[in-house]
């Protein structure tokens, strides 16, 4: 194994890059240096995180690469990081998407390039740190620190209603997460421990669990987001710059799902059992309702934003089925959604950069001028629909198999949502891509250039790879998920 602190290096490398960028002077000529510095840092982080995957021990269900230092003298708060099967792919997702974000912002961010790159690098540090932390307070610190760069990204570089969207995003998610802080302190008071590993052993009385569960639910349900706490998401997505939407959809939403698996399932099993019907109801409503809302959208980004809520509904169903297929499906769906929705936002960014509008009506017949674009867009669109052979299929399929063990009503709800997702995505694709060009302004739109190819093709490859070789991803996480399920079943069998 590796004898140097790999996880810490991955966490703090972007921050080191940021501190270098801080000293690069910014003007017309040198802003390119800032971009290159950011790109190289994020690429370096990605390569290091690949080592994480290559060296990962598939037969070990608990944390690997652990690093632990005492931090506060007066109570058991440690700087304790590590990676297990669940967090491995979340970290990879973050490190994979951030360089693409930097590339996607290469030309369309013209003002304050330095601050922009600093925000993204800081964001990468806190995202990775959050997924890697094994100490709940450390987790919380990273979890909330995510708000700072995201607030700035939406607020400074966003669209017309960016201020409204950034405030809504910040306050909405802050409200959820402060309740989690109280829950964390209560947990600490009951057990004198802040270790996630330790707390996954069911130490709380039934009533305490119910309250703790609700507090965690408040923060994760807003983050993931579940209906009816999703209203910040369309605003934030629509107003954020392309790369901001990519990170928001690709990684930040997964923080909610990750939290549900780690905290609700892992630490509060009995309360989870009690609240499963609530979650299932909310998820099915979310899937059906937001799919219908997505169908009616006229803005491409908003449509994808609502489709995200629907897809995350499948994830919450999968998580709270608490069986092997359900959880694996939920994880696969999260990874797949991270890639697909990120790619869809990037695709929207491509035409937005050219035409500066996201109205669906404006477009039409793009296939005539942009054949390559139409192809990659199709791959991602089908991934979002869940066509076999793409990543979306694996997740949805596994969740539905798992749901059969639970209740056929849930299956009907989820399947209905999947059908609806095919409807709105295909309808969107038809309106934008097919047909003849009716809008004169589109007459000389150019196909994707090399930079955009570099961004979109790796994503397309990974979407297909995930669809054809799901075991590549399922094997490392299997044992960690089994551990959580076993703990859960032991706790509820009592």
């Amino acid at each position, binding site marked *: 194994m590796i004898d140097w602190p790999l996880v810490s290096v991955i966490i703090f490398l972007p921050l080191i890059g940021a501190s270098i960028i801080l000293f690069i002077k910014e003007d017309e000529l040198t802003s390119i240096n800032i971009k290159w510095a950011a790109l190289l840092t994020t690429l370096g982080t990605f390569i290091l995180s690949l080592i994480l995957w290559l060296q990962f021990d598939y037969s070990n269900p608990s944390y690997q690469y652990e690093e632990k230092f005492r931090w*506060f*003298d*007066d109570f058991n708060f440690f700087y304790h990081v590590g990676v297990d099967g669940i967090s491995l792919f979340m970290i990879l997702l973050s490190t994979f998407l951030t360089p693409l974000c930097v590339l996607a912002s290469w030309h369309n961010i013209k003002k304050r390039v330095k601050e922009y790159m600093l925000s993204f690098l800081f964001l990468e540090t806190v995202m990775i740190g959050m997924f890697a932390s094994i100490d709940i307070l450390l987790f919380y*610190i990273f979890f909330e620190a995510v708000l*700072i760069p995201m607030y700035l990204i939406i*607020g400074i570089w966003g669209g017309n209603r960016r201020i409204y969207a*950034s405030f809504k995003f910040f306050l909405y998610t802050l409200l959820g997460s402060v309740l989690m802080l109280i829950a964390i302190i209560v947990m*600490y008071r009951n057990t004198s421990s802040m270790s996630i590993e330790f707390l996954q052993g069911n130490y709380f009385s039934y009533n305490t669990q119910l309250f703790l569960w609700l507090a965690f639910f408040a923060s994760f349900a807003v983050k993931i987001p579940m209906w009816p706490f999703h209203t910040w998401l369309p605003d934030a997505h629509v107003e954020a710059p392309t790369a901001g939407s990519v990170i928001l959809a690709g990684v930040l939403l997964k923080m909610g799902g990750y939290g549900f698996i780690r905290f609700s399932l892992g630490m509060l099993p009995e309360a989870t059992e009690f609240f499963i019907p609530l979650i299932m109801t909310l998820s099915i409503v979310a899937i059906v309702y937001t799919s219908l809302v997505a169908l009616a959208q006229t803005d491409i980004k908003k449509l994808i934003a609502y489709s995200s809520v629907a897809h995350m509904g499948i994830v919450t169903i999968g998580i709270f089925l608490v069986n092997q297929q359900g959880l694996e499906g939920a994880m696969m769906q999260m990874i797949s959604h991270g890639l697909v929705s990120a790619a869809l936002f990037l695709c929207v960014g491509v035409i937005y950069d050219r035409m500066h509008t996201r109205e669906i009506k404006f477009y039409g017949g793009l296939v005539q001028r942009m054949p390559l674009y139409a192809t990659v867009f199709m791959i991602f669109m089908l991934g979002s629909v869940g066509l076999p052979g793409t990543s979306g299929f694996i997740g949805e399929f596994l969740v539905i198999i798992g749901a059969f063990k639970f209740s056929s009503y849930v299956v009907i709800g989820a399947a209905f949502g999947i059908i609806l997702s095919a409807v709105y995505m295909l309808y969107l694709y038809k309106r934008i891509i097919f047909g003849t060009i009716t809008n004169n302004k589109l007459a000389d739109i150019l196909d994707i250039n090399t930079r955009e190819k570099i961004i979109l093709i790796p994503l397309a490859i990974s979407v297909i790879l995930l669809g054809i070789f799901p075991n590549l991803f399922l094997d490392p996480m299997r044992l960690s998920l089994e551990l959580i399920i076993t703990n859960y079943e032991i706790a509820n069998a009592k």
Partner: protein
Amino acid sequence: MLNNIYNIFFIPEIFLACSSFVCLLFGLFLKKNAFRQTSNLAVFVLLLTIFLVYYDSESNFANYKSLFSHSSFINFFKILALLGSIASIIISKDYFLGIRLKNFEIPILFLFSTLGMMLMIASNNLMSMYLAIELQSLSLYVAAAIKRDSISSAESGVKYFILGALSSGILLYGFSLIYGFTGSMNFYDISFYLSKYDNLNLGLIFGLVFVMVGLAFKVSAVPFHMWTPDVYEGAPNSITGFFAIVPKIAAVALIYRFCLVPFENFYLEWSQIILFLSISSMFLGAIAAIAQSNIKRLLAYSSIGHIGYILIALVAANDDGIKAASIYMFSYMIMNVAIFAILLSLKVKNEYLINISDLKGLSKSNPIVSLSISIIMLSMAGIPPFIGFFGKFYVFIAAIEQELYVLSVLGVLASVISAFYYLRIIKIMYFDESKSEGIINFQISFQSKIILSLSLFLIICFIFYPSLLINISASLTI
């Protein structure tokens, strides 16, 4: 016991009192640059006093027949108050010169007020407590009205004086009731007398309530906060800075000692009052600050909100509460020093900055200043990883230790509301497009720059080595 009568001068309070007189004479006889020289001398005197407080942990003589007390808690808050006044004298020097307010009395007033605060923090007797409060307040009344040709400054001085005198009167009436019913003015004697009883009688409850009202005035807790925004707004900025940074430290220490020493066994009686003060301060501070356009009023409401959080730790009334209060107070002082160091150096069209909307475009003209303001604001809002978060975190730990779940949830809700107006400042600096650039001037003297960088360093880097402060505050005994 003292071996040598000269040692009496090394008792911090006596040293500070004598040196303040020396400073006064020094200022009187100086012709040129009196203000600047006196300020420098005052800073020097305060530094020496810190040194003396630090090494003066053993002298029983200072207790003066237990008029004053001695403990690590007292010393910690004394040092905090001294540090706060050093910082505020340094950061305000250029401001006073800038508005041509060169009265050399200003640093002297700060010195006397600081002396009053040190006595307040240490007082162990109702009488010494009252006299210390008056010494502190009288200097501040004058300081608020020091800009004689300005109506708003005079108004704020008078307002502060009238309301302060009223509160002192209420306080004194409460003292008389407590004295009447217990027969003693000494905190320990009162505590000993009360330990024989299970409940307080009606007279004592009245006395307690009156004293609480008076102290709530001094810490500006809602509903006795009305003077704060007006005084903050009217006084010259640097005096406002002093008000925001230092007197709160002393008043908080006093309210802690008053509740936890003579009335420690009557938790139920006073905790209800503090609970109400705490909740109302947090919410009013958070909600009222939203509508402010004047940065000083905004900071006034923000300080009211912060007092609410510190009072949560008092309601908790355990060792964790004392620890939380000292950490919170430290972070509060640091954040206020930092924000006032910036505000006192920002000029818009040759006028010192007052309106929040004038911050527009600051992020373009002064990226480092606006980044610093953003960090301070996020820290005040309690967003990790800055020091403000840990202040709040320890407060909630103390509250949950005492099973005050509802209070904690209310506390975090108020912190979300207050995040809104802190974010608004960031929004104005970064998100709003400014048409006219370069009207904001940032000029800062070398000394203030050191203070500013030091406090920013503490705000950002506290997370890397928290144990230093936390170990000190964990060892404090009241």
